[in-house]
């Protein structure tokens, strides 16, 4: 009798343990450094927001995330065909539903693009200008087909239909959020950004701006179902807080680990680290429109004075990548490491300062305290390097974005790869109508504009390469930007979690779709 009781108790205990383990594996908990203040893939281009969209939204054309080069895959569109240099037609997947249960139709696809390219809402207007400037019209041909028309011949149709800004949102839901349910008003877009709805494998069931995001598996997803019933993403801004949360098993995964903290995680037998060189540059930017910074020789001198190799070795233990030009391996045939746009030459820097007539006025260098991994340390090191060639630097640590201030002189920033083409990284920031021009710190002259047009819209690859090399030469002669390095971004996680950042994504994407992540119960 006692034996039977013991056996029963043991079996019950084992079953409970197994069930608990199984339940634990149904939820993933993530600690992130930053949480977005709102979530709308169409208007967002921040490094913070880009972490979260891929789980809940789909673009028209998908991409193999495991490969750095662009391998396109069906997404919301099942097939597509470029019918002329300025037009592409796409067959839209049938049977797709949004997280609120509404069926997704060609009307939703048209609406998703139309809200940006014919924007009545200023944040979308900015994205039209920097990301989709060539898109003129999106129309439904029939119940299954959408036609997209560009103003000029478009060599990047597939690339542009994969971008985050082109992810599909529900027309009816958005319009009904506030005011007239038949009109898309700015207040609808504001409301949507707090209660976002997409077609992806996870639905967003809770979103507390700047704090917390909860995904739950969406059983109506058109593709392979999500591996977790629930994913909770909690903001833990302090690195020490994130490390403690991971060590105490409060979370399974944490982001933004500087290289000099990796040993702390690696020394714990229950934890591990994954990382990769993110397709993003930490950069120094100059306000070319500030009269004090107007002389190109001064900016050249400041660029030549920064020893990026030493920064990489000291701050990143050599794991980051110091670029020779504004170029990423993900650009495929347009990857041009052979260019020598950015170099270190302190002697040349001193000579250029003399030629520029630099009289010792302080250069204000703005930086945020903790936004970029190693950002403040790099800023202090740059201050020392500029000091070594005779430039006085006043470090200004501020949480404000000062990039659009006329008084801004220099600051740190990042240039992410928004899509795998020089137009999707350098172009977003430094095109004649790009972000920097919009914010008034950069102004392209006629020669630059002409060369840009050639690079951006030529359908001849060799011509595009030649034009981009020409643009890089112009940037070298009159620098508004200096890429420091491609950071090596590391993530700390439980050993039982199989996850890593993937090279085919834009920077920082936390991809928790099927096949990309597993968490063992024990």
């Amino acid at each position, binding site marked *: 009798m006692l034996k039977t009781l013991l056996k029963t108790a043991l079996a019950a205990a084992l079953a409970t343990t197994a069930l608990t383990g199984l339940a634990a594996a149904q939820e993933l908990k993530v600690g992130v450094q930053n949480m977005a203040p709102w979530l709308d893939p169409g208007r967002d281009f921040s490094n913070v927001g880009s972490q979260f969209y891929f789980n809940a939204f789909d673009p028209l054309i998908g991409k193999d995330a495991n490969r750095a080069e662009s391998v396109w895959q069906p997404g919301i569109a099942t097939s597509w065909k470029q019918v002329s240099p300025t037009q592409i037609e796409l067959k839209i997947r049938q049977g797709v539903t949004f997280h609120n249960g509404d069926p997704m139709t060609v009307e939703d696809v048209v609406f998703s693009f139309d809200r940006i390219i014919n924007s009545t809402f200023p944040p979308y207007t900015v994205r039209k200008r920097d990301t989709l400037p060539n898109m003129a019209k999106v129309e439904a041909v029939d119940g299954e087909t959408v036609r997209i028309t560009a103003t000029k011949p478009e060599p990047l149709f597939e690339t542009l239909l994969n971008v985050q800004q082109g992810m599909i949102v529900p027309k009816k839901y958005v319009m009904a959020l506030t005011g007239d349910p038949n009109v898309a008003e700015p207040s609808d877009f504001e409301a949507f950004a707090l209660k976002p709805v997409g077609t992806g494998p996870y639905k967003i069931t809770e979103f507390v701006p700047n704090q917390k995001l909860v995904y739950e598996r969406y059983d109506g997803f058109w593709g392979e179902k999500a591996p977790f019933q629930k994913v909770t993403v909690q903001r833990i801004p302090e690195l*020490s807080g994130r490390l403690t949360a991971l060590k105490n098993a409060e979370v399974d995964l944490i982001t933004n680990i500087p290289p000099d*903290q990796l040993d702390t995680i690696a020394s714990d037998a229950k934890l591990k680290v994954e990382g990769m060189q993110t397709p993003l540059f930490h950069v120094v930017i100059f306000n070319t429109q500030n009269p004090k910074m107007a002389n190109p020789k001064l900016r050249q001198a400041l660029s030549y004075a920064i020893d990026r190799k030493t920064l990489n070795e000291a701050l990143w233990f050599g794991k980051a990548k110091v670029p020779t030009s504004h170029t990423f391996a993900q650009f495929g045939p347009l990857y041009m490491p052979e260019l020598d746009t950015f170099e270190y030459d302190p002697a040349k820097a001193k000579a250029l300062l003399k030629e520029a007539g630099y009289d010792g006025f302080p250069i204000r260098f703005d930086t945020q305290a903790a936004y970029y991994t190693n950002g403040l340390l790099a800023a202090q090191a740059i*201050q020392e390097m500029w000091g070594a060639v005779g430039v006085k630097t006043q470090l200004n640590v501020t949480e404000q974005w000062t990039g659009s201030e006329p008084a801004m002189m220099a600051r740190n920033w990042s240039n992410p790869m928004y899509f795998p083409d020089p137009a999707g990284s350098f172009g977003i920031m430094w095109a004649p109508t790009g972000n920097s021009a919009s914010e008034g710190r950069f102004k392209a002259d006629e020669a630059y504009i002409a060369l840009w047009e050639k690079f951006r819209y030529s359908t001849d690859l060799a011509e595009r390469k030649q034009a981009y090399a020409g643009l890089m030469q112009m940037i070298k002669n009159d620098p508004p930007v200096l890429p420091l390095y491609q950071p090596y971004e590391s993530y700390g996680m439980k050993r039982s979690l199989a996850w890593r950042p993937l090279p085919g994504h834009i920077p920082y994407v936390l991809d928790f779709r099927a096949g990309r992540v597993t968490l063992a119960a024990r």
Partner: protein
Amino acid sequence: MTDILDAKVLDANIAFPPQPKPRAQPQSRRRFAWPKGVSILVAGAALLALILVLLALFAPALAPFEPDQQKLLARLRPPIGFERANPAHWFGTDQLGRDLLSRCLHGLRLTLALALFGTLIGLALGVSLGLVAGLFGGWADALIMGFVDIMLSLPFTLVALLVIALAGTDVAVLICVLGIAYWAHFARLVRAQVLGLRELPFVEAARAAGATRWHIATVHMIPNIVSPIVVMASLNFSNLILLESALSFLGLGVQPPTATLGSMVGQGRDYMASASWIVAVPALLIVLVSLAAMLLGDFLRDHLDVRLRER
């Protein structure tokens, strides 16, 4: 912090008139007599304070390196005695390869200077306004004490945040912020003392003799309220060290690369697990400085409080 400070100073209220009769001191046969009322703890605190002040004063001469001089490829070296230590850097190097000892010495210097100037500003502002409120009474008293009440009801960190957000993070701004942190405590204390003194015969006599308010304030009032003010200033000093450290920890204090003890702790906090010396050394110095100031403040309170002395 505020409550402790208030309680200690209110304990130190001085009985009037302030000059008690000196007791006859027994003649000592020894050549050296341990000062009466000075415990070993207080003597230790005084010695510690003296050492810290000397270190701060002579920091530029004592520091083996420039405080901001970086050696990027020699980052995070531990203090001597540990593996990977560099003998040139006794306390190790920080996250940018700067000598921690040199930064601590210069940081101590700036931290003490900030606390000193902050105390002096608070003292000048609080004593003047307290005197005006106490002597003039009426609407001037109501207005000043209204400001005092508002000031005491506000969480000072929020006030500091607002001022720094509006005026920037310059050292001068930080000194002003520290200066306004405790003026209300001084004003309230001085007003209370003046109200008590105002009714005493020697002040009434001065008034009857035609003395001006200025004369009464400077000749009769201030000398009689020096003791509690000194006590409060000493306690205020240690509180300002902690406040400066807290603001710098939050990134609102002196801007990098300039070192203060608080900013060194603040910027080093991410390295607590991997390079704890970066935080431990300046944090220990903060503890020592504020401990010395607190102990000396307590001693002054005990020494100057007539009631305590008579017990």
